[in-house]
C-alpha cells in the first residue's frame, strides 16, 4: 500500500506559485528525502502533508485516505521540526506524553510507549529534565522521541539536523537510519544537504523552484541525472560543467564531469592550472582552472601537487555527461 501519495499538488501564496504540479508516491516503509536548495518549496510541501498548510489544488493521500480536510492530529503523522519545537515549560516526559494524553490513552499505554521510546533513544536519564537543561543533540532526540510515541503511519522530518554541529550531525544521521530500520515506518525527510539525502534515502525527490526535477534512488540519480541541476546538486564535490567546445569547436553542448572521473594524464585533452590543493588524507582535491572554468579534481590517496602547477587532465569517456542549452541531459 502507498503510505503517502501526492497528486497534482499546487500551492500559491497570493500570486506567487511556490509548488507546481507535484506528484509523489511514498511506499510503505520507504524513507523518502525531499532535497533542494533553500526556497525550492520543500518545507512548504512537508507542511502541506502535515496539514499545517492547505494545498491550493491537488490531493494528499495518507495510507489510502484522502486527508485534504483532515486536521494534522488526525492524519496519523508525527513531525520533527528543525527548531525541535519542544514545549519549554514541560519536562521531557511531559513533552512526549502531551499528544498521548490528548488522545486519552490509558496510563499504562502512555508509560509503556514512553519507556519504549526512551529505550530506543537513550533518554532514560533525562525524562525529568526541562528542554533548557539539555544539549542540542539531546533536544533533537527528545523531539524524535515525541514523534515516536505517537506511533504514526508516517514520520515527517523538517531539516532535523541543521541545528547540530558536524560531528553530532553524522551520529544523529546514523541514529535516524537505524531508527528507520527498527520501526520500518514510512518517513519523509526534508533537507537541503545532499549528503544527508544520499546517505539516508531509499528514494530522493529533487525539487527546484516548486517543481520536481527528478525522483529515484540515490544511485539512480547519481549515475543517471536527467538534467544539469540534478547532476550538479548531488555529489560532493559537485560535478564540473565545461563547454564541450573545449574539445570540439562545433559542439554546443555542456560537458559534465564528476571530480572523481577526472584524472591527471600526461596527454590529456585539458591543460589546467592548479589554484588550490585540499589534502584530506584519504583524498586530495585539486581546484584547478581550465581557461576560465574552475574545475575540481578528486584524486584518491595523497599526492604531492603544488599551487600554480600546470597539469594535463583527462577523463573517463563513459562517465561523461552531456547537457543541451536548456540543461537537459542529452547523453
Amino acid at each position, binding site marked *: 500500500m502507498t503510505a503517502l501519495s501526492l497528486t497534482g499538488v499546487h500551492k500559491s501564496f497570493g500570486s506567487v506559485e511556490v509548488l507546481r504540479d507535484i506528484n509523489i508516491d511514498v511506499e510503505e516503509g520507504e524513507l523518502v528525502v525531499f532535497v533542494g536548495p533553500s526556497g525550492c518549496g520543500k518545507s512548504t510541501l512537508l507542511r502541506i502533508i502535515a496539514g*499545517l498548510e492547505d494545498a491550493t489544488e491537488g490531493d494528499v493521500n495518507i495510507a489510502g485516505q484522502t486527508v485534504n480536510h483532515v486536521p*494534522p*492530529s*488526525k492524519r496519523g503523522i508525527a513531525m520533527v521540526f528543525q527548531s525541535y*519545537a*519542544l514545549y519549554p515549560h514541560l519536562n521531557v516526559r511531559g513533552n512526549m506524553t502531551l499528544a498521548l494524553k490528548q488522545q486519552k490513552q490509558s496510563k499504562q499505554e502512555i508509560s509503556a510507549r514512553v519507556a519504549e521510546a526512551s529505550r530506543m533513544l537513550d533518554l532514560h536519564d533525562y525524562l525529568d529534565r526541562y*528542554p533548557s537543561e539539555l544539549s542540542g543533540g539531546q533536544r533533537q532526540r527528545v523531539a524524535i522521541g515525541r514523534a515516536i510515541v505517537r506511533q504514526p503511519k508516517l514520520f515527517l522530518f523538517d531539516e532535523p539536523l541543521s541545528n547540530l554541529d558536524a560531528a553530532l550531525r553524522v551520529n544523529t544521521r546514523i541514529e535516524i537510519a537505524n531508527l528507520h530500520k527498527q520501526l520500518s515506518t514510512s518517513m519523509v525527510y526534508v533537507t537541503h544537504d545532499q549528503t544527508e539525502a544520499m546517505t539516508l534515502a531509499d528514494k530522493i525527490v529533487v525539487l527546484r523552484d516548486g517543481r520536481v526535477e527528478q525522483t529515484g534512488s540515490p544511485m539512480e540519480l547519481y549515475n543517471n541525472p536527467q538534467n544539469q541541476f540534478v547532476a550538479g546538486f548531488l555529489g560532493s564535490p559537485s560535478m564540473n560543467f565545461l563547454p564541450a567546445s573545449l574539445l570540439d569547436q562545433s559542439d554546443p553542448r555542456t560537458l559534465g564531469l564528476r571530480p572523481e572521473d577526472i584524472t591527471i594524464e600526461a596527454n590529456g585533452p585539458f591543460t589546467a592550472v592548479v589554484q588550490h590543493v585540499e589534502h584530506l588524507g584519504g583524498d586530495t582535491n585539486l581546484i584547478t582552472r581550465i581557461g576560465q572554468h574552475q574545475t575540481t579534481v578528486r584524486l584518491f590517496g595523497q599526492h604531492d601537487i603544488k599551487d600554480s602547477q600546470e597539469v594535463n587532465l583527462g577523463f573517463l569517456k563513459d562517465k561523461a555527461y552531456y547537457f543541451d542549452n536548456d540543461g537537459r541531459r542529452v547523453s
Partner: protein
Amino acid sequence: MEKSRPFNANMLLMHGALVVYMIIALFPVFVIVINSFKKRKSIFREPLALPDADSFSLIGYETVIKQGDFPLYFQNSMIVTVTSLFFILLFGAMAAYALSEYRFPGNKWMGLYLALGIMIPIRIGTVAILELMVSTGLVNTLTALILVYTAQGLPLAVFILSEFMHQISADLKNAARVDGLSEYKIFFRIVLPLVRPALATVAVFNMIPIWNDLWFPLILAPGEETKTLTLGSQIFIGQYVTNWNAVLAALSLAILPALFLYAIFSRQLIRGLTSGAVK
C-alpha cells in the same frame, strides 16, 4: 586586576544611582509608615523623626478599625482589583493571540484600533460611562468598577502581549497542532505559560492605578456597601479638619495588599521561561 577596575567603578556608579533612586521613591512611603505610628502632635512637630516611647501611638489604626467598615473596603478593593486584572489578562491575551497568530482582513487596523485606547484617557468618557451605568442599573455595584477598569486596562495589555506572542516560534504552535491540541488548548497550555513574564508585567502596570483610583469609585460606586479603600479613607479628610493619624494608618494598611500582589507577580517577571524552547 588593572583592567577590571573601570568596570567596578561603573558598577559602583550604577548601583549608586539606583540606590539614590530607591531612596527618593521609598521616602514618602517611609514617612507615611513612621508617622502612622505617632501621636498627632509629634506628626506635626517632627514629621521625619522615628516614633519613640514618647510619641508612639496606635490611635490612627484604632480609629481606622473602629470607624467605617474598613474590612469591607479592603474586600471591595481586593475584589475589584483582582477581578479586573483577571479579565484584563484573559481578554487581553486572547485578543493579542488572535491578532498575532491569525491572518484575517483588517488585522492590522484592528490592532491599531485596540492600541488607540492607550492614548485616550478613559476619564474623558466619564459622563457617558455614568449614563450607561445608570441606564443599566449598575451604579453602586462593584461590577461597574470592574467593567470600567477592564476596559481601561485592555489597550495596553493587548499591545504588550501581542508583541510577546509574536516572539513565540510558529514551530511550537504547529507542533502542538500536530500533537492534537485545539486552538484553545494551544492558547491556554502552550502560549499563556510562555508569556507569563509579559502577563506579570501587564498585571503590575494595571494593578497600581486600579488599586489607587479614587475617580471612578467616587462617581460610579460611592455607596457604603461598595466603597473601595481609597474612597473609604477619604472620610478622614475633611475640608477643615483632617484626621492625619487615621489617614496615614489607612494608607499604610492599603500598601500591604498591593505589596502582596506585587510580590506574586514580580516572581513571574524574573523567570525567563522561554530559554531552551527552540534553538
